[in-house]
């Protein structure tokens, strides 16, 4: 079982907010001993999901949690927004599909960067995405 050691709630209302969430994730990852590859994976995922919450979800927030399970450290980030939600989840997760004429690689790509990925969304009910990454030892 993983314990939550510390948690930070951050708003996502502007592009600068997305950058702050990503920087917080980077600082924490480096402090907890994540290597350069794991750190880049986590912070890139945070950037994709933060931007989605802002651009597609109309803004929301992020909860960053430092987890410990006795031997390893984990970083869990939850992104929530109260936007339009995702109607065609299967299509979005397959990748290459975007309603914003961008690349459509954010969600499908993010999934491959982290150990845990969970998404909940319904049309009109907003979107919640949880990702988690652990140190190797």
């Amino acid at each position: 079982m993983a314990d939550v050691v510390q948690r930070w709630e951050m708003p996502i209302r502007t592009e600068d907010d997305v950058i702050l969430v990503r920087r917080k994730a980077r600082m924490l990852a480096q402090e907890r001993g994540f290597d350069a590859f794991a750190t880049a994976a986590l912070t890139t995922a945070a950037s994709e999901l933060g931007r989605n919450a802002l651009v597609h979800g109309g803004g929301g927030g992020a909860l960053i949690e430092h987890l410990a399970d006795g031997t390893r450290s984990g970083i869990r980030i939850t992104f929530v927004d109260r936007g339009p939600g995702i109607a065609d989840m299967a299509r979005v997760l397959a990748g290459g599909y975007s309603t914003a004429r961008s690349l459509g690689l954010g969600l499908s790509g993010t999934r491959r960067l982290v150990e845990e990925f969970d998404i909940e969304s319904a049309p009109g009910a907003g979107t919640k995405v949880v990702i988690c990454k652990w140190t190797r030892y």
Partner: protein
Amino acid sequence: MSQRGNIPILRVGSNLLTTIHIDLHDTIAEAFQEDVLVAIKNTGAKGLVIDITGLEEVDTYVARILADTGRMAALMGAHTILVGMRAEVAATLVRMGFAMDTVETALDVDDGLAMLQARKALGRK
């Protein structure tokens, strides 16, 4: 060179060199792309080296801005070489399914400039 944005673009011989040292977001990215195009226009540069050594992460949004900048420069007759991508950035982009295959890449600024010189010697545009 006169610029709208705050990412400097320098002239190096017959080429341009720009170093991205700040987070690219919408407003900054647009100004940067316009500055690059104006600089190509004003100098007639045939080559552009974009140095991203300073970027600790490149998400699909920023990757697209970089690739688009290369495409815009190509329309103005300049060849772009993206240099300085960190190993962890390259790994992350490929894992996400982003192929940076519309822009040529090189390890560092020296290699990038050497590649542009070699192109010039071959008489390619």
